[in-house]
């Protein structure tokens, strides 16, 4: 019974949201506000029961020694983060933000250089001609031209004029192709979501398929 009620509620809310495609209306507004409110409440409960309770409160109660007392540090930073809502002392929250940013930068810099920049540079050092493999040779040449000309496009110390204009134009074309591919994929993603919803309406709700 609960599944049937849930399916009908989900179908009704889906149709409420789709009604916006015709024009803005009270049904859409109702579904939109319900979504925002329920999401906020759900996340609040979820984060308390999956983050704060097991990782701070329960751990503080069950742990002993250093492990227990070290939990005071994140608890302290968590509390001072909330001080942002009091304008007079909101500056204290910057300590927590600084702490978070410090950790984020530390991990990010190492991961970025070691895990992204260096492997990608290494993957660009390709042979221009591979004997007996014309397709791979052409691919490598295109890749290297693409990398160099795209770099040149972002070189702004020299005006994009004269002889310099040609590689910059080629670089821009590579960038445009990349944007086009990303946009095409994005259209596909949005249609997939629509297919998912229509599949739900036809399969789970109306049982037509």
């Amino acid at each position, binding site marked *: 019974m609960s599944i049937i009620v849930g399916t009908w509620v989900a179908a009704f809310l889906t149709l409420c949201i789709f009604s916006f495609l015709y024009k803005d209306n009270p049904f859409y507004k109702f579904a939109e506000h319900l979504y925002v409110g329920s999401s906020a409440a759900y996340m609040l409960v979820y984060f308390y029961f*999956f983050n704060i309770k097991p990782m701070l409160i329960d751990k503080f109660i069950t742990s002993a020694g250093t492990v227990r007392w070290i939990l005071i540090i994140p608890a302290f930073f968590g509390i001072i983060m909330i001080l942002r809502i009091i304008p007079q002392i909101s500056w204290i929250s910057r300590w927590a933000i600084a702490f978070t940013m410090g950790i984020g930068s530390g991990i990010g810099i190492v991961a970025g250089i070691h895990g992204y920049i260096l492997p990608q540079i290494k993957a660009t050092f390709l042979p221009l001609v591979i004997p007996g493999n014309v397709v791979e040779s052409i691919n490598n040449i295109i890749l290297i031209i693409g990398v160099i000309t795209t770099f040149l496009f972002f070189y702004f110390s020299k005006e994009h004029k004269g002889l310099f204009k040609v590689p910059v134009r080629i670089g821009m074309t590579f960038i445009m192709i990349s944007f086009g591919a990303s946009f095409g994929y994005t259209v596909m993603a949005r249609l997939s979501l*629509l*297919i*998912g919803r229509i599949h739900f309406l036809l399969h789970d709700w109306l049982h*037509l*398929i």
Partner: protein
Amino acid sequence: MFKKLATIDRRYIYVIIAICIIIPLLTKIVLEIKVSPPVQSAYDSMEKLPTSSSVLFSIDYEPSAEPELQPMLLAILRHAFKKDLKVIVMCHWPLGFPLGQSALVQVAKEYNKEYGKDYVNIGYRPGTEAIMIGIGREIRDFFASDYAGVLLDSLPMMRAIHNYRDIGLLIGLEAGATGDFWVRLAGAQFGQKIVLGGTAVTTPDWYPYLQAGQIDGLIGGLKGAAEYEKLVESSGRGIVGMTAQSVAHIAIIVFILLGNIGYFAIRRK
């Protein structure tokens, strides 16, 4: 007439797109699906794993990406269970947990798999990057117990699993940037073999990883899910949805052409 072409009311477009999706779904027409090399590589990576190897699934998406990634998860899980691999499911996104759990329960039942012996769900923990680095040392530092609070050491299949060295393949199903972290932390720092599956929005950003050999396979969007379903011979929402997707794409191309014909005709006048 050309002005009308250039300014078609968007509501007509919505209706036609809806029809283009509804009719293929109702008629269940299936178009031929060609498997692309990135998806084939993903499949082969799993296929090469010896029996009883462990596969870690990271469910890093929420219901908003469910239409694309859930069919992918179901298809890959079927492949893993068919090969008798040990499946560990975890998530960095809190709402990924119920999606992962429902898929696990469904597919495990199909293959008569037993919880704790063949598969486990260790659930969600906050702290994405810290967890990824921490698993390199000891998974229990962050996941002392599974989603239900059962200690990992009391689950038979988890006794021999401590860090990345014990995990044959990591499958990251991603709707955001978590896939990048997996590659840059687990892949680059610990040499973990990774296959990424993403929404169609996120997939283009990961082709450089594939080209550089940082990941072993890439499954993109509903199309990727359909290709994987074809490889594991299990028709699901991916294959069914791809016909609707193709028809809708043709409709969009026709609208783009009509709009441009109208635009250039007006400009010439």
